[in-house]
């Protein structure tokens, strides 16, 4: 616990107070959030239409799963360094966003098509029977019903991106990673744990925000249907002949 206390003290101490050096936790926070949000938005823009297409038409699912698996295997640090070498540090933001988008797309893609696939086919049939066009079915029926899973996918992607955005400082960008790398290199444990704490707190806050979003953005009827059943009582004892059941 001493470790955490030191770290918290470190976070709130202005370590670089003198001169014109603007290097506060708040600035790093802003940078970290910026990379996360931009990458998330780009990943959504790419993954959601493709995911909806796969979910609605049922085609291309295996390819999507295969490619997602391969994308998940790509080590972010390796990708980041090789891209930064290729594009140059001046435009390292592009390399970083590219890597984070690649990281987030599999989750969002899965959320999009799983959300659509989870819908009862009878509902879709009913929509067709009522006379809706394919586009209307997609927008009025499938998307709202698929929202919970889609938001779940975006939430997971956001968490992964926040955790990995710590690598951005390796190629000249800001973010909380600078505290983690700096802490390791100068053997400054409060800085290291402080950086880790900051990332963890940011991730938890984002997670909470998405949880709230999931609650309010989903149509009430859909939310009720999606509630999981968790047994609260232990199951009955086995019924064996000759043994009384209590």
């Amino acid at each position: 616990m001493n470790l955490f206390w030191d770290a918290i003290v470190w976070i709130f101490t202005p370590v670089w107070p003198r001169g014109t050096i603007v290097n506060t936790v708040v600035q790093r926070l802003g940078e970290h959030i910026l990379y996360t949000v931009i990458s998330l938005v780009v990943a959504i823009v790419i993954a959601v239409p493709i995911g909806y297409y796969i979910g609605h038409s049922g085609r291309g699912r295996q390819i999507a799963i295969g490619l997602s698996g391969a994308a998940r295997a790509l080590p972010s640090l390796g990708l980041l360094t090789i891209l930064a070498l290729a594009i140059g540090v001046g435009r390292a933001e592009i390399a970083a966003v590219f890597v984070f988008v690649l990281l987030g797309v599999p989750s969002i893609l899965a959320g999009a098509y799983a959300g659509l696939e989870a819908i009862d086919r009878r509902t879709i049939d009913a929509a067709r029977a009522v006379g809706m066009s394919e586009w209307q079915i997609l927008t009025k029926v499938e998307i709202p019903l698929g929202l919970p899973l889609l938001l779940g996918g975006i939430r997971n992607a956001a968490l992964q991106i926040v955790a990995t955005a710590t690598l951005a400082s390796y190629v000249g960008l800001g973010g909380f990673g600078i505290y983690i790398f700096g802490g390791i290199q100068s053997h400054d444990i409060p800085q290291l744990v402080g950086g880790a704490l900051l990332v963890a707190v940011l991730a938890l806050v984002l997670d909470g925000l998405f949880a709230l979003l999931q609650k309010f953005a989903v149509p009430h009827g859909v939310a009720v249907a999606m509630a999981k059943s968790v047994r609260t009582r232990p199951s009955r004892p086995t019924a064996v002949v000759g043994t009384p059941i209590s």
Partner: protein
Amino acid sequence: MNWLFNNLDLVLRLSLEHLQLSIPPILIGFVVALPLGWLAHRFRVTRGILLTVVGLLYTIPSLALLVALPTAIGLPIIVPTNVITCLSIYAVALMVRTTADALDAVDPDVIQSATAVGYSAWGRFWRVEFPLAGPVMLAGLRVVTVSTVSLVTVGSLVGVPSLGNLFIDGLQRNIPLEIATGIVMVVVIALALDALLVLLGRFIMPWTRVVKASRNRAVEFEAATA
């Protein structure tokens, strides 16, 4: 291509060490997550606590955990055990949620039938619930496998040799081919282990081959997006 021809043995050696660092966390993750996932599935109280703790663990950036954990406990940093421990923590964190969801997805009617037929709780778990939850747990395990293999590279930043060494050295000496080789080998190992798991799954659970039943897609999705 000069670099590659001259350093094939280095690449192979690092690949082997990478593999040896990847496998234990996956196994530990699966084994440890099983009882924890069952606890989360069974009792509402533990579910909330476990899932929150597990979610917390997963948000800790890997690099920070690799240095902070041994320092806090007082163990050395640059031993493979450290990397294996930290990656096991992540694997457990991922698998607990998947296991809980997989067990949740088993049809309660089937469980009640099993009880009615005469299974004890222990027998019912191993003969009915576990096999039925198998496919979803396998999907989760595949995700854990792939991300573990990818995370092992971070160990290089703290001195535990893995394919990540190729990134650091390739960057310092400006040899993009070296970095690319590292990336390719990591992906190859990840996909190979993934394929192995699929085969293993088909073998141990032959019923999944025949029945493309209406599994609860929502639960599969949880596994896939973890």
